Every structure is written in structure tokens, then in C-alpha cells.
């Protein structure tokens, strides 16, 4: 039932601006793939090309091996949830959900049944006769999903569908949408700029940058082994310390083959240090394959569920260390002004190439 998508060499220019730069991408049947990137990175253009609203200059989009790149949107049979939901204001909830069925000539009886089923799937069956204007943001979101699944398309596209909701509701809907996708077993291509959303929901994430896919991998690989400084910076909190600084000042009991493997091909390597992966070196952990650096605690921020220490290394670089706020941790947490020695295990370090990131 779910379809695969095969995109190759997709290119789209707007005047001088290259929005898609020879993008190739495969989405397997039933996969939840997220396009993640800053605004202008091409993620929306890519999604709109699949939906048929943007016509690329060149390239191929095949669904189940059928070329659709030149097909108009209404012949693609792809479901879509729009960012602002795009519910028809002159129709009730049921009429909105029934619209694609009516277009497909589904009879009244079956239509009513399928409308009810789709609304039930998003827990909105009680609202069938409401006007769209009477719904809250979260309810609109659910109706938009019901409308996108009711005609049983094999592929569903979602364009930042949760961005208009507040934090608590957004997190609830993330879980719900993911469960719905697993239950229906559809292929989903999802666009967001919220990295936590991408990490929680996706089977794979494609991080986009300036019209290209910078990295495509599982959430864990994206976070634990970012392919570039851009990815490491965009996803999660990171502090960057040049390899030269680490290797000259640190007590780096790092395996030679680890360093060779990671540094080998990089011109100007820097270490990516994640605040939650850093430990305080109490001397108890004497394992090899760890990096040890000395520094001074500048400031400690209390954030409720986390304590963050800003640590100035001997080289002047400031890195962060973050820990949950169990009492046992808080009692032994370093105080501002005190010297501290940190430890990072080999497996928690990644190394990328230095580059200037625009802000």
C-alpha cells in the first residue's frame, strides 16, 4: 500500500537563486522522512515539487517507478497537510473531509462512513458538523490530517504541520501523528525547522542546506555523527574546539587509530562537544580512549530540569556542561569560579571540518 519515492537530479532556480541543486533522494515505502533545514535551504521547494506546486527546471520524481515530475498536482493522488491547515472556510468539518471523496465520485453512504472513520482516527468525530471557524488550532490540525488521509493516498506530505501550535500541544501531536503514521503504514515526507520534532518522529532525516542535502541518516546518526559543522550546529547544542587546541593542551588518552580514522581526511578538524556528553573527571574513571581537559567554571545556570556550567578552557574557549538536577548531582556540581577537569569518552566525540557559519 505505501509507495516509494525516487528523486534524482532535481534542480530549481529562481533567477540567480538556486533553490534545489541537483538533489537526489530515495524514500522507501512506509518510511517517515523529515526534511530539516533553515529557511531558504530548499526543503519547502523539494516538498512542493513532490506535491506538484513547484515545477523543477530539471530532474525526475518517480513514485513506485512512475515518472510524475510533469504531472499537474490534482493528478498525483498525494495527501498533504499544509502549514496553516488550508481548511475551506465555507465548508463544515465533514464537508472539508468529504471534499476529496466527492471529487472521486464516492457515493453519499460510503462517503459519510469514510468521513466518520477519518475523523475518528484523529478523535474529531464529535466535531463533524462544526464550522471551521469554531475550531481551535489543534482541532484544525487534526481535521487537516483527516482530510489528507481520508482518500487513502499512498504518500502524505506535511509542511510544518505543528508550527502554529503551542509547546505542550505540539509535543502531544508529535507522538500522535507518529503513531497514526505507523498504524496507517503510509509513506510520509515531513518538513520542519524544529530539530527536536525531527529527531522524535523520523525514521530518517535529510538535513538541507543551500539547495543540497548535507546529510541523510537516522536521527541517531545525524546527532551522534554529524557530517559537518553545519549539521552539528543546526541540530542540538554544540561547542566547537579546534583539534589543534585539544591536542596541544588536552591530556588526550585517545587511541591513535581513533584519531587517524577521524582526522585523516580533514583539512582543519574541530571537535564537536555536546554539553550533555561531557563528564567531570573525578579521577575514578581511568579508562583509555578519553579526552581530558582543564578549565575554570565561569557561571552555573539553573534551568529547572538541567544545570549548565560554562567552563572556560585553558585555551580561552568556553564550553558547556549540562546535567539533570538530581540532588546527588547538584550537591557535587562544580561551583562558579572553581577549577574543573572534564572528561569526554572517545565514542562521545565527533570531529568535523572547520567552516564559517553565517548567522
Amino acid at each position, binding site marked *: 500500500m505505501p509507495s516509494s519515492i525516487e528523486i534524482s537530479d532535481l534542480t530549481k532556480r529562481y533567477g540567480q537563486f538556486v533553490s534545489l541543486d541537483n538533489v537526489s533522494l530515495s524514500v522507501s515505502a512506509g518510511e517517515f522522512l523529515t526534511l530539516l533545514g533553515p529557511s531558504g535551504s530548499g526543503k519547502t521547494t523539494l516538498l512542493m515539487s513532490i506535491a506538484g*506546486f513547484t515545477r523543477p527546471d530539471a530532474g525526475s520524481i518517480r513514485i513506485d517507478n512512475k515518472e510524475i515530475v510533469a504531472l499537474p498536482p*490534482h493528478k498525483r493522488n498525494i495527501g498533504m497537510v*499544509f502549514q496553516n491547515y*488550508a481548511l475551506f472556510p465555507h465548508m463544515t468539518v465533514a464537508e472539508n473531509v468529504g471534499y*476529496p471523496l466527492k471529487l472521486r465520485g464516492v457515493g453519499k453512504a460510503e462517503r459519510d462512513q469514510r468521513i466518520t472513520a477519518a475523523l475518528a482516527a484523529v478523535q474529531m468525530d464529535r466535531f463533524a458538523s462544526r464550522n471551521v471557524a469554531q475550531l481551535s488550532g489543534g482541532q484544525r490540525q487534526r481535521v487537516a490530517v483527516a482530510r489528507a488521509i481520508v482518500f487513502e493516498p499512498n504518500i502524505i506530505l506535511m509542511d510544518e504541520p505543528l508550527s502554529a501550535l503551542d509547546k505542550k500541544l505540539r509535543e502531544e501531536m508529535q507522538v500522535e501523528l507518529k503513531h497514526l503514521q505507523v498504524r496507517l503504514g503510509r509513506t510520509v515526507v515531513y518538513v520542519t525547522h524544529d530539530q527536536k520534532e525531527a529527531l522524535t518522529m523520523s525514521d530518517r532525516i535529510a538535513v538541507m542546506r543551500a539547495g543540497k542535502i548535507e546529510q541523510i541518516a537516522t536521527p541517531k546518526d545525524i546527532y551522534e555523527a554529524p557530517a559537518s559543522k553545519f549539521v552539528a550546529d543546526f541540530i542540538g547544542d554544540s561547542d566547537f574546539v579546534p583539534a589543534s587546541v585539544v591536542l596541544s593542551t588536552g591530556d588526550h588518552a585517545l587511541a591513535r587509530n581513533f584519531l587517524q580514522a577521524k582526522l585523516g581526511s580533514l583539512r582543519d578538524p574541530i571537535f564537536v562537544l555536546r554539553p550533555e556528553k561531557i563528564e567531570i573527571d573525578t579521577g575514578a574513571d581511568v579508562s583509555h580512549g578519553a579526552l581530558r581537559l582543564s578549565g575554570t567554571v565561569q557561571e552555573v545556570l539553573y534551568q529547572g530540569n538541567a544545570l549548565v556550567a560554562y567552563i572556560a578552557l585553558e585555551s580561552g574557549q568556553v564550553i558547556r556542561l549540562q546535567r539533570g538536577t538530581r540532588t546527588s548531582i547538584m550537591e557535587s556540581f562544580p561551583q562558579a569560579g572553581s577549577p574543573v577537569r572534564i572528561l569526554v569518552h572517545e565514542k562521545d566525540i565527533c570531529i568535523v571540518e572547520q567552516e564559517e557559519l553565517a548567522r
Partner: protein
Amino acid sequence: MTAGVNSAILASVDASEKRQSHLLLFPAIAVVSLAIAPFLWLGALSFVADGQISLEHYARMLANPSYITTFVTTLQMSAVVTAFVVLLGFPAAYAISLLPHRLATAALTLVAIPFWTSLLVRTYAWMVLLQRNGLINTWAIELGLVERPMRLANSFLGTSIGMIHIMLPLFIFTLYGTVKAIDRTLLRAAANLGASPIRTFMTVFLPLSLPGVVTGAMLTFIICLGFYVTPQLLGGGNVTTIPMRVQQNILIYSDWGAASALGVVLIVIVALVMLTLRAVVGKRG
């Protein structure tokens, strides 16, 4: 409400501020009164005949078949003009709304310039074009479309053409606002759900632009009811509208009471149409 700390002083400050803000009501009341006053006086006058309160002017209107004819002509012409304005204006407003911003602004400006130009000059321009030996008849004969000049001016047809031209810009402006405000994502959503461009237009675009069409049509109709110069000049005596009867009553018969009664009827029709419009469009919004 129980009293609390400072509640007396806070209430007094509140009251003094309210008094000050009531002062601001005066300009509003003054201007609204100024706007309405002449009509109230007109209304009063229409119920006076020979120095006595009377319904005579209204009774005469109902009794005189020529008045009925005038009313029918006026309503008929307004309806015809409105229908054509809608038929011509809708595609135009739709097309302009699809143009890139610069072109759309240019088109609207070109449409706007005649709108702000003297009604008399516009009517006169049509007199020139429509007369027996005018441009349109000359071309039609030269192209062999007709043998003898058509009677375009001095007729219901000519008056309607002139009024359509005059009203078209207002309708386009009114509708353009509504059409431009329609969320384009809705059209994409319809396409995504399987609707062809024509289905999308019929099931989404058209219903959503309806409030603008209704508003524009009703305003057009209302204004058409009040036309005087155009039917006077382009009708050539063959078209008599209510405002022309008002004028006749004053200048020819010096019958101010009858003129007032006609004016009152016209205002009442306008008010009724406007209230209908508010009810219809208000309910949808």
C-alpha cells in the same frame, strides 16, 4: 463588589476619565447629524401638503401610472447595468488578481483614473461614441456589420452602456479586495485533493469570492438608482429615472413636496438594500 483600598479614589479617576472620553463623542455625533439632518428635513417636508400633514404626495405617486413607469424603468435599468457589471467585472477582477504586483497596480490605476473623472465628462465621451454618426456606427457600417446607423444614443441601450462603463471600476475595486484576500493555499489544497483547475474555481474560488460579488453588486445597484446626468444626456428623453422626476418636480412644477416624497422613497430603497447587504454578508463572515 466590595470596596477596597483606594477604591473610592480609583472610581473617581475612572469617572472623570469617562467624562473626558464622552467629550470625544461630540465630533462623531455632530458629523453624523450633519450627514443625516438634510434627509430628515426632506422626510418631514414630504408629509406636508398645503400646510397640513398629509400622505397626499405618496398617494399621488401610487395613483399616477407614469410614476410607476419611472420606478420600473429605474429598477430595471439598475438591474441590467448591475448584471452586466458583474459579468464583465468578475473575470477582470479575477484576472487582475493573478497578475504580478506591478502589473496589477498599473491595471488598477488605469481603471481608477476614469473612475475619479467627472461623471459628466464620461457621459459625454459616450455621447460622442454612440451618436448616429459616432465612431461605433461609422465602424459598424464600414465593416459591413449593419447597413444603417444603429440607434445607440438616446435610448435605454445607450444609457445602460454609459452606466456600465461608469460603474465597472467601482465593482472591480470592491471585488478585487475580496478576491485578492482569498488564501491561495486553499486553491493548492483543492488541487492536492484532486480538483482540476475548473473544479477548484467552481468549488473554492467562486464561493469564497461571493461576498465581494454581492457587496459590489448591491453597491452598483444602489448607485445606479441615483443616476441623473447619464440618463438625462444619453437617454435623450426616452429614459426617465426617479432622480429625473425629482428634478422635474422642482424645476418645472415647483412641487417641493412631491420631490421630497420621491427622494424619501429613493433613500428608503437605498437603506433597505444596504441593510440586506449587511445581513447577507454579515451572516457569512
